[in-house]
């Protein structure tokens, strides 16, 4: 219903990042995430069901759907915080939640830091490495140097070197988000679960952070599952999308799933997918709040 009013340049600029989905880790990689007929139920209400999805190393998957359909619940199920109501969910070859520590990086829905918080970005990244250990870190020793190198590596990976030493409360929203991605990456996880990481960023930052996540996914061979409000900033980096609906779901490549026919069948009401000249997608007629339009930064 709402036309896209975002700047097209922001999306076309990221086009060269469109890497082939070839995984870099192994020739025939084991599935990192596997869902078979999975369903989620919260408070007696079935949010979504029938999700069949296989994610391998180095693949970038987006979880899409209208507001309130349970996109964040999908992340909770993969984290093992919430048990699946039906079907089978396997994460890194085991039950969800079994290896939640080092092998899964998690970026929850956007949280901003109080401007007066006087803790450096480096320290926030560092907490992702050893924040769950008891005691205080020793100010000497070989372990300290190794930890500092790991933190510096993660900060370099997201290009946050220029402001990582500043108190995080004084960093901009985009800078904070990059530091939080570094925090999620600092243990070199095999899976990265991101819950609306582009929300509340401006358009240039949205496409820059999307390109960063796409690069980490394809170059480092990290499997990325990202809950998204708007598919357009990440469309060119995606290998697969999962569209959730009340009581159902469709998974596949963006070209297969984000079409008028598929979404009309999924939502059992007429849905139209329009493609603009620059390749952006507009979904019209989706029940509840449309989730693949330009986002609340554009026109709501």
């Amino acid at each position, binding site marked *: 219903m709402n036309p896209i009013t975002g700047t097209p340049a922001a999306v076309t600029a990221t086009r060269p990042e469109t890497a082939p989905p070839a995984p870099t880790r192994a020739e025939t990689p084991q599935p990192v995430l596997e869902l078979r007929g999975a369903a989620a139920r919260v408070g007696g209400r079935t949010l979504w069901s029938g999700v069949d999805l296989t994610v391998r190393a180095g693949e970038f998957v987006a979880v899409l759907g209208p507001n309130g359909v349970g996109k964040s619940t999908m992340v909770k199920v993969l984290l093992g915080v919430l048990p699946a109501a039906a079907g089978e969910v396997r994460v890194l070859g085991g039950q969800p939640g079994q290896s939640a520590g080092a092998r899964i990086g998690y970026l929850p829905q956007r*949280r901003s830091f109080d401007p007066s918080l*006087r803790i450096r970005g480096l320290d926030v990244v560092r907490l992702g490495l050893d*924040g769950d250990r008891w005691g*205080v870190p020793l*100010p000497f020793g070989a372990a300290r140097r190794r930890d500092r190198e790991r933190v510096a590596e993660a900060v370099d990976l997201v290009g946050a070197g220029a402001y990582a030493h500043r*108190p995080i409360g004084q960093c901009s929203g985009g800078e904070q988000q990059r530091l939080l991605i570094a925090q999620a990456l600092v243990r070199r996880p095999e899976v990265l679960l991101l819950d609306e990481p582009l929300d509340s960023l401006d358009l240039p930052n949205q496409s820059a952070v999307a390109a960063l996540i796409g690069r980490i996914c394809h170059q480092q061979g990290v499997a990325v599952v990202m809950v998204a409000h708007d598919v357009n900033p990440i469309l060119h980096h995606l290998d697969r999308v999962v569209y959730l609906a009340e009581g159902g779901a469709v998974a596949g490549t963006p070209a297969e799933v984000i079409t008028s026919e598929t979404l009309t069948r999924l939502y059992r009401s007429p849905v139209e997918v329009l493609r603009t000249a620059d390749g952006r997608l507009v979904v019209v007629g989706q029940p509840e709040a449309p989730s693949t339009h330009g986002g609340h930064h554009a026109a709501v």
Partner: protein
Amino acid sequence: MTELAVSAWGQPFFHNAVLAGTFIALAAGLVGYFLVLRAQIFTGDALSHVAFTGAMAALAGGYDLRLGLFVGCVAAGLLLAGIGRSGRADDVVIGSAFAWILGLGSFFLTLYTTSRSGAMGGAGTTVLFGSIFGLSTGQTLVAVLVAVAISAVVLLIARPLLFATVDESVAAARGVPVRVLGFGFLALVGACAGEATQAVGSLLLLGLLAAPAGAAIRLTDRPFRALALSGGLAVAELWAGLAASALIPSLPPSFAIMAAATAVYGATFLIRPQRAPLGTASPAAG
């Protein structure tokens, strides 16, 4: 004057005050850092009401004053943790409840002074404003042991507590027991309030909890350095206060300690002008 100072210096009561005060201040400084970081200073204010009432209730009931102090403060800390984030009580409820608690304290005080015919008529003042120069050897030993235990627990939980404070949802996903830590920390704050009441009194304990931590946070943006600095500043300020009070007998120790703490906190606004001041930092937006 010099004679007085020398004489105070040599007295056992002064040794007790230095010994107990050092560890009490260390515990208060360490706990205070997280109290400031978690924006729970108001909890410290609440506990100062409870500390007075708890101590008075214990006296009226014929028990050791410190028993009421610790039981009251730890219970109140746990209660506040329970109210805390889940069901946030509104300001009017909290304000009325604390005024009522303080009123209850004055009731117990009257009960105590009338029933025990003024055997320890100054008990109210002692609890409100502290009596660090009045600690016996036995009281000093208990105070030191409790303070060492509080400090040790703070150091043990420091890193996960920092994680839970700065980044609660990620910490929870990583398996940090966020809720248990929150409860445990406020129980520690309660125990620490009971300790600090013995040193500076319930009315002034907020100064020992908040001022050194506030100064440390202004001086460094590295969390563990700030934690150490907060503990160190609290101890140094307590020493300075005790020394001033020994040299100038008309200065009560509680006042001298608070004056030192406030002076240090105020001084942090004078140095480091190159960093953006807290109030004027531009909000972090897009």
